[in-house]
């Protein structure tokens, strides 16, 4: 199937000058290169967002600190949130989807390669636009300023009177532009999965990663667009004198909240479902067992996709909705816990009785399982609206969603990096540095975010610039900040690992992990054409069939 390789005429394999090489990257429409561009650009934004987080943590290290001014502090948490969600988490997951989906379904490329390139450049330039606000936020008035109204930009803070200059406009336009990019990518992923599967790859035989990215793309179509619509309304308000969110003319600030969270909560699932996808590929391989309960996993994913569309207002329990609405959103939010629980049990069921190999990807996956469970539990706590009335807008909430995003999404992403890096570069990441990275990050993570729940319960509100001494928050905040620095060191180890291994890592063949999905049947890194001959698939684990012709999966499915 994969052993035959197209031989390239000698003249075409010579090394090109680097300007030429760079030019090739700029104009590329190859899904693998675009995937890598997505990932690398997200890592750059991750660094920026991380530095902003560190500035926030230094400021909050002890009471009455004035490391930065209050204005800068507001900009930092706004930019941190916006960057991490829109320009780190989403594009990096799109990058992996771009790279892996065509390889896993035996396709030559995405369905619309040029749309793919267009979407990437939209997302990337959206990010640049956001950061340009540091220079151009106040237009010609002098010193620039970044947006400082929080990543929700709640009305009326986003209105002209409260957000003069152009900083909020950069925020709006950046999200609008990158939102169109996301919609393009989502359409592309759906079309690719539905139309370009190789012979034998029935929809019931697709790897779970492909399934989950299909659900994710469907959610992007329905979740990102309300945000785009709301941003258009905000622009109309700011530039054409409209009154959508202008309470003085009868407009409604609450409507903005609804529109934002109709986007905002499904967005969380847009981010976490691809991470479930990584888990569903990595855990079986390192447990040496096929995934437990494939059909149930698919059903649970689709179920999460549907239910998560109806939970948004649990972000708004404190605005005074009536008790029926509160009960409804409490109920739907708790219902999401059921399919998610099914997934966690399925992963544990996959590990149960398996010959588990504790390689770095597996370590991060196990970390994901525990942390995502705890994040889910605090989520259930806050789904109960009376409990939420107590803790909304406190550091407890901050701890909860960082537990999801860092403890869940970021750990899954690290697992994915260690797992697919050999496929993308042809070299292994160092296991030794990987272990350092894992343990340092784990310790830093728990030091920061476990402790962060406590000042929340003690009443520390989020987004405060500083606090009075003697409330019992000082020591806790100090520990949280120390944890943040340990995480930063771990990230440095990770980056060092990425760079060093690119040049010095052990070279690998097609299939270093003895895995089962189609991307491991081609060379590492894969050739531009992916598959020399179109593969034919007879089961969910095509490479198992290939390696064990005496006992293929196709006999049992």
């Amino acid at each position, binding site marked *: 199937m994969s052993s035959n390789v197209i031989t390239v005429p000698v003249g075409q394999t010579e090394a090109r000058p680097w300007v030429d090489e760079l030019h090739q990257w700029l104009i590329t429409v190859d899904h693998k290169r675009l995937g890598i561009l997505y990932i690398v650009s997200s890592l750059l934004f991750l660094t920026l967002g991380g530095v902003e987080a560190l500035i926030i943590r230094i400021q909050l290290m002890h009471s009455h600190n004035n490391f930065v001014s209050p204005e800068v502090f507001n900009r930092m948490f706004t930019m941190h949130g916006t960057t991490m969600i829109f320009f780190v988490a989403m594009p990096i997951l799109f990058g992996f989807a771009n790279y892996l989906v065509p390889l896993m379904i035996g396709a030559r490329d995405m369905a619309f390669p040029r749309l793919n390139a267009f979407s990437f450049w939209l997302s990337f330039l959206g990010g640049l636009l956001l950061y340009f606000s540091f220079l151009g936020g106040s237009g010609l008035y002098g010193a620039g300023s970044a947006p400082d109204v929080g990543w929700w930009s709640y009305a009326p803070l986003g209105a002209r009177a409260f957000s003069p200059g152009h900083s909020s406009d950069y925020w709006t336009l950046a999200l609008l532009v990158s939102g169109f990019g996301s*919609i393009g990518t*989502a*359409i592309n992923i*759906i*079309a690719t999965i539905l139309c370009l599967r190789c012979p034998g790859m029935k929809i019931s035989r697709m790897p779970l990663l492909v399934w989950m990215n299909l659900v994710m*793309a*469907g959610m992007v*179509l*329905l979740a*990102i*667009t*309300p945000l*785009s*619509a*709301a941003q*258009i*309304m905000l622009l*109309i*308000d700011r530039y*054409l*004198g*409209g*009154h*959508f969110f202008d309470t003085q*003319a*009868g*407009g*409604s600030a609450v*409507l903005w909240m609804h*529109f934002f969270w*109709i986007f905002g909560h499904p967005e969380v699932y847009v981010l976490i479902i691809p991470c479930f996808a990584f888990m569903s590929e990595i855990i079986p391989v390192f447990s040496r067992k096929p995934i437990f309960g494939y059909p149930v996993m698919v059903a649970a994913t689709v179920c999460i996709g549907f239910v998560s569309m109806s939970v948004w207002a649990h972000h708004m329990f404190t605005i005074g909705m009536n008790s029926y609405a509160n009960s409804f959103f409490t109920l739907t939010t708790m219902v999401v816990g059921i399919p998610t629980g099914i997934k966690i049990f399925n992963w544990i069921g996959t590990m149960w009785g398996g010959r588990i190999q504790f390689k770095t990807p597996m370590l991060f996956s196990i970390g994901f399982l525990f942390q995502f469970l705890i994040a889910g539990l605090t989520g259930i706590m806050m789904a109960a609206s009376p409990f939420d009335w107590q803790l909304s807008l406190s550091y407890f909430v901050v701890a909860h969603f960082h537990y999801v995003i860092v403890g869940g999404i970021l750990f899954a992403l690290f697992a994915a990096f260690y797992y697919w890096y050999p496929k993308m570069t042809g070299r292994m990441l160092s296991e030794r540095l990987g272990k350092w990275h894992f343990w340092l990050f784990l310790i830093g993570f728990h030091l920061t975010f476990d402790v962060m729940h406590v000042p929340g319960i003690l009443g520390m509100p989020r987004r405060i610039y500083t606090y009075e001494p003697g409330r019992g928050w000082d020591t806790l905040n100090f520990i949280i900040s120390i944890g943040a620095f340990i995480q930063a060191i771990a990230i440095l180890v990770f980056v060092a690992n990425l760079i060093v291994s690119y040049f010095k890592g052990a070279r690998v063949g097609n299939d270093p992990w003895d895995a089962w999905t189609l991307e491991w049947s081609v060379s590492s890194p894969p050739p531009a054409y992916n598959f020399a001959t179109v593969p034919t698939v007879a089961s969910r684990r095509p490479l198992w069939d290939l390696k064990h012709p005496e006992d293929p999966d196709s006999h049992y499915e």
Partner: protein
Amino acid sequence: MAGLIIAESAIFTIFVVAYLFYLGKSITGPTPSEVLETPIFYTICLLSSSLTIHLAAKFLERGIGFAFLGLWVLTIALGGLFLYGTAQEWHRLIYEHGLTISTNLFGTTYYSLVGLHAFHVTAGLIMLVTVAVFGFSGHVGVGQSGRIAVLSMYWHFVDVVWVVVFTVVYVLGR
């Protein structure tokens, strides 16, 4: 295209929700019942253009080029007529009733929703005209019928949206 239509539907849904939510919430006039007139003729124009584009695509599949081009031009004319109707209505609202996008909530939501739809009609017309130009230079044949079918899907979508907008703005909203 189906994916794009789902995404577009979500955008329109949000604008329709905003329109319905703000019905009757305007603090100052004019109100919809005072100033809006139902554009029956232009609605018929737009809806019948769905029929003509459908027939045009069918003729192209069967390779009857001149019938395709004729119906295609008719579609463009009907779409253009609809846009003219919208322009006339806006002109009347602005100059006779003094209703602009910043007058009150009705103005804001009305111009956004109808404007968003008109924008989609305009985008559609640009694509239709492009096809017509290629058609007259003899570059559209049976081989392109797949793409033409996709474009006609978009045009049907724009029509369906108008049915919703019409119901919301001119029937329910008054």
